C-alpha cells in the first residue's frame, strides 16, 4: 500500500510515540510519502522526518510534482488547509492513498479519490498490531497518548486493534 501522510496524522503518530514503528511497515509492503508543504507544516518534527527520509522509510515527494493551477483547483474545491490539499492533489495525480486524521479532509479525500484510498492513523496502528510490530496494549496506550495530545480522533473500542 502506498500512503501519503498529512501533518495531523504524522503529529498524532509522533505524540503516540508510534511514528517510527508505523514507518516500520515498509518491511511489510507499505511505502510512505509526504509532500513538501506537509513537511513544512510539521515544524519541530521536520528533523525526524528528514532522518526517516535518509533511512529510506519515508519518501519526500520531489518538488513540482504538480502545477500551482492543479493545486489551486483542489484548494478552491474543498477549502482545506494547504498540506491537506497537497495530499489530496498528489494522491490523485500519483495514485496513492491518503492518511489523514482530519474529518473534513477525509471527507474531501473520499470524494476526490474514493473511499478505498483514504485511511486514518489508527488503521496504520492496527496494521502494526497485525504485523507484530506492536502489541494490543501498547496500541491502546498510544491511542490514549494521541488523544491526550489533542488529536481529533474518533472514540474506538479496545477491540478495534484485535480485528
Amino acid at each position, binding site marked *: 500500500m502506498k500512503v501519503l501522510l498529512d501533518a495531523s496524522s504524522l503529529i498524532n503518530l509522533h505524540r503516540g510515540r508510534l511514528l517510527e514503528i508505523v514507518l516500520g511497515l515498509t518491511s511489510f509492503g507499505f511505502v510512505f510519502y509526504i509532500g513538501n508543504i506537509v513537511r513544512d507544516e510539521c515544524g519541530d518534527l521536520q528533523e525526524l522526518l528528514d532522518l526517516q527520509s535518509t533511512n529510506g522509510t519515508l519518501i519526500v515527494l520531489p518538488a513540482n510534482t504538480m502545477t500551482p493551477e492543479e493545486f489551486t483547483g483542489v484548494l*478552491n474545491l474543498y477549502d*482545506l*488547509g494547504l498540506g491537506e490539499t497537497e495530499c489530496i492533489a498528489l494522491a490523485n495525480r500519483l495514485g496513492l492513498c491518503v492518511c489523514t486524521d*482530519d474529518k473534513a479532509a477525509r471527507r474531501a479525500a473520499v470524494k476526490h479519490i474514493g473511499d478505498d484510498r483514504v485511511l486514518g492513523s489508527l488503521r496504520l496502528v492496527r496494521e502494526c498490531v497485525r504485523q507484530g510490530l506492536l502489541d494490543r496494549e501498547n496500541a491502546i496506550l498510544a491511542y490514549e497518548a494521541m488523544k491526550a495530545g489533542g488529536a481529533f480522533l474518533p472514540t474506538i473500542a479496545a477491540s478495534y486493534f484485535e480485528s
Partner: protein
Amino acid sequence: MNTEAFQQLIQKRNRSKDNLLSERTGISRERILMLENSAEPTLDELRVLANFFRVDLRDLLPSHPRHGAVGLLFRSGGKSVDEITSSALSRRIGCSIDLLDESAVPSWIDRFGRESKTYGDAEHNAEIFRRLFLGDDQVSPLYGLPDIAINQMGILLFLIRTDRFEGASAYVEGLPFIFLAESFGPRMLFTLAHEIGHLIGHHDPHQSFAVVDSQTEKRPQAGKNAAEYYAHAFASCLLMPKRGIGVTLKKIREMQSGSDEVLGDLEILLLSRIYGVSFYAAAKRCEDLGLVPKGGAISLNEALKKKYGSAEKRADAANLPPRATVRFPKMPPALLKAATEKVRTGEISIGKASSILGLSIADLLTANAPRMN
C-alpha cells in the same frame, strides 16, 4: 497565482541579499531574475519564497472571492496597502466571519462620541473608556488592555509576525477586528490603544471599514490626517491618563526630595516604564500636557538615542525598575473555541483552522488537548 502579490514580493526584495535568497531557497540567481521578469513560478518556488519572505503561501495564490471584497475595504481606506497585507488581513477576517456563526454590533460603540476629531475629544473618550471598562479608574496603568479588548469589547485581536505594518483595524459585518504586528511590547500596547481609537472614533459599525497603519507612534498633524491624529491622541490619553500622570509625577518628585526643575529625561523614562509605553510616547504626552516644551519629545528622544544608543539603554543604565510584562494572546480565544468545535464536527479542517488562527498544526492540536486539573 496572485500575480500582483507575487510581483510585489519579488520586486521589493532586497537585491543585495540575492545570494542569501538563492542559498536559502535553492532558486538560482538567474531564475530569480526570470521570475522578476514575469516568468511563471512553480508551486515549489512559491512555497520556498513564501517561507523565505515569511508570508503565507495562500497569499500568493488567488484569493477567495469573499475575502477579495474585504481586501478592497483595506485598499479604499485612503492609504497605500500592499497586496500581500491586504490579502493576509482580508483572509483572516473573511475566515473568522465564517467561523463565528453570529455577530452583533458591540454594545459599547454608542457610548463614545464618534464624530471625534480634536485632542479634547480623544481625552474625553479615553475617560469614558476608563469609566466603562475600569470602574472609572483614571489613574492606573493599563497593562490589561489586551484582555479588555478581547473579553469586554469582543474585539477579535490577532498577533501577526510582519514588518509590513504595525497595526490594522476593521469592522466587517458587525465584528470589530484588530491586528497587531509582534514587536517591542510597549509599542504593541500603544498600537492596540491606537487601533481601539480608530474603532471608537471613526469606524461606523453599521458600515464595513478597514484601515492599516504602517506606524502608530508618530502623530500626524490634525489637518493632514484627522483620523490618525485622533487615534494617536486617544491612545496617548487612554494609556497615560491626565490625573494619573499628575499623581505619578508628584510621587516621583517626592521620592527625589521635591525638585521643581523642568521635567527631566529620567522622570519621563520612569513614567514610560510605569505606564507601559515607549519613552517617545510618554514624552509626547507630557508635551501635550504642557510639561515639556513644544518639540521637546522628539528632541529628547533623539538626544537619548545619540548619547546612549536608545532611551531604553539610558533607563537600564540608570537602574530604573524593569517594565511590567503585557500579555497579548496570540489569537482570539472565542475563535479558537469555535475553530476546534468546527474541526471536531468536520465543518472545517485542521489545516484551515490553523491558517485562520495563525497557529501551527501542532499548536492547534495541543490547544485541543484535554485540560488536566
